[in-house]
């Protein structure tokens, strides 16, 4: 579709207008920490090269979601209304993640209506990166940091204006009526991919030939990597009994790094130690999602590497796995 120029001077004004009819969510810096938040004043939005410490997944897949409520008299209350939302300033790595999450939640036999509903009512506005931050490795995944087409509108910083490429009707509708100039931004050249980081191996080999205990020795099992990861999507259901015999069912985030994640009612735990759990996390990202949906569920955003209190590094772990398997394969 078309490309539009949004002058930086007019951006706040346009966003303030958009805010009147949509819930606007964008990166905001609060006490030095950049995170996605519901915007109160368009001027506080920070569109920069910096990456928010958390991914924007919580606006499509909330940390806690009320699924239903029933009482002793029966009756189900459907989940709450979702407002029309504009999710602004999503980096290509996070857009890739949203694509992967949609594959998990909205394709196949079972469809997560909450997620599908939110996704339908959300306009995704992407923003390109001009340089890599420390620990980013999107260039070794299939993500192009400067452009992504998995969104409705994509912004590229062009000095005193943003070039907004529109990819969908929703995006067109968002920017209609602002009398913006259509420009020719030229043909984009996709940046050259470096060596792709992935695991091509049998699950059996990965279980048996890798010394997971050594690889995960320093892990504390805190699970922060899963909370801030753009593609982690495990959840649990929690039934909360209220005082008058009413029960509310919540869908809450869970993390495969917690021992309770796989704990059976009998007390048996199939993934008892932290190396089992970390193995699950790496293989889920690099093997299982690929087997099921065709994507590798790691977009190279580097969040888990930057936030880990003990410097666990999924990038070097995967590299090391490949090294070990290659060496063993040759022998």
């Amino acid at each position, binding site marked *: 579709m078309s490309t539009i120029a949004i002058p930086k001077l007019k951006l706040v004004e346009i966003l303030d207008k958009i805010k009147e009819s949509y819930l606007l969510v964008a990166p905001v810096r609060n006490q030095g920490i950049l995170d996605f938040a519901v915007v109160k004043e368009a001027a506080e939005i920070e569109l920069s090269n910096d990456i928010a410490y958390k991914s924007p997944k919580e606006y499509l897949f909330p940390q806690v979601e009320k699924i239903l409520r029933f009482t002793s008299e029966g009756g189900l209350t459907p989940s709450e209304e979702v407002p029309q939302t504009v999710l602004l300033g999503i980096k290509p790595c996070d857009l890739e993640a949203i694509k992967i999450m949609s594959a998990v939640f909205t394709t196949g036999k079972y469809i997560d209506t909450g997620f599908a509903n939110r996704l339908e009512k959300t306009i995704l506005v992407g923003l390109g990166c001009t340089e890599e931050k420390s*620990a980013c490795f999107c260039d070794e995944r299939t993500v192009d940091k400067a452009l992504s087409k998995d969104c409705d509108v994509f912004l590229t910083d062009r000095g005193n204006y943003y070039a907004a490429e529109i990819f969908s009707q929703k995006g067109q509708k968002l920017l209609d009526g602002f009398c913006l100039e259509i420009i020719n931004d030229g043909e984009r050249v996709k940046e050259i991919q470096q060596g792709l980081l992935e695991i091509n191996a049998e699950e059996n080999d990965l279980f048996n030939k890798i010394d997971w205990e050594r690889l995960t020795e320093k892990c*504390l099992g805190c699970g922060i990597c899963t909370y801030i990861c753009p593609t982690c999507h495990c959840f649990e259901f929690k039934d909360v009994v209220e005082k008058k015999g009413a029960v509310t069912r919540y869908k809450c985030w869970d993390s495969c790094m917690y021992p309770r994640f796989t704990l059976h009612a009998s007390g048996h735990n199939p993934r008892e130690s932290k190396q089992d759990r970390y193995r699950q996390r790496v293989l889920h990202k690099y093997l299982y999602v690929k087997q099921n949906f065709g994507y590798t569920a790691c977009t190279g955003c580097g969040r888990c590497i930057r936030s880990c209190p003990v410097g666990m590094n999924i990038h070097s772990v995967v590299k090391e796995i490949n090294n070990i398997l290659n060496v063993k394969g040759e022998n």
Partner: protein
Amino acid sequence: MSFETQKNEIIKICKKLFKEEGTKVIIGFAQSEVEGITTPLFMRTAEDAEKLKWDSQCTPNLAKYLLEKRGKVGIVAKTCDARAIVMYLVEQQIKRDELYIIGVECPGMKNNDATASCGCEACKMRIPPIYDVLVKYNAEITLPDSEEASNTVAIEDNLKKFQDEMKKCILCYSCRQVCYGCYCKSCFVDMNVPNWLPGEISEGAKMIFHLGRAMHLAGRCVECGACERVCPSGVNIRYLIKEITKFTKELYAYEAGIDPEETPALAVFNPNDSEAAMSGSEVQ
């Protein structure tokens, strides 16, 4: 250059330990692949010792790994690590005779932007309280002189301050996992029966978690600052624990992690203890 000489000294000690004492593993610090991040290092051979890092960014508290290791273990311990080790000995979690502590005089750690790291900004203790061998810094260390401002805000503002911090928390429990003192097999927040936290992630749930954790650390906190350093949302929760640590020190003359023979303040009593909490009187 004193970090450098200390580092060489530590490496020499590690090599000697592997050779003469038959130590299985020594826990130390290493540079991570990403600049500005220090990661724990598990040395098993003399070659591994060459990877050791010792500079002003070695902030992680290594003591927690001791709980998982059995057999002859060595550890590079700066002051707060050593204080945590003392507490583990007091609480009978590890055995002293299986442990070799390389105490390192710590001049205070720094963040990437050269400000004092969380936990170091008011720490006046430079020499670890327990060690088998001490590696001196051999240079002038400037101690932080600022006395920390005590909690002087009005009680109404106290609640607001607490609630503002709680708004940031996402209940990921990273502060618990990283804390040396949180090693319960099953944490109270993970329990189903009784269910201490409400099902919803509400402000109340966050308050119960942080107050409960602070209470469990009363008189046990070694002020390593790991909880605040790890928090991805920047919750400044240490002020709560700091306040009660100071309080226990003043009232019961007990400081955690100094003397392995002393019983923690809340595990003993004195018949003449203060009646400060009784009805009518107020805790100040």
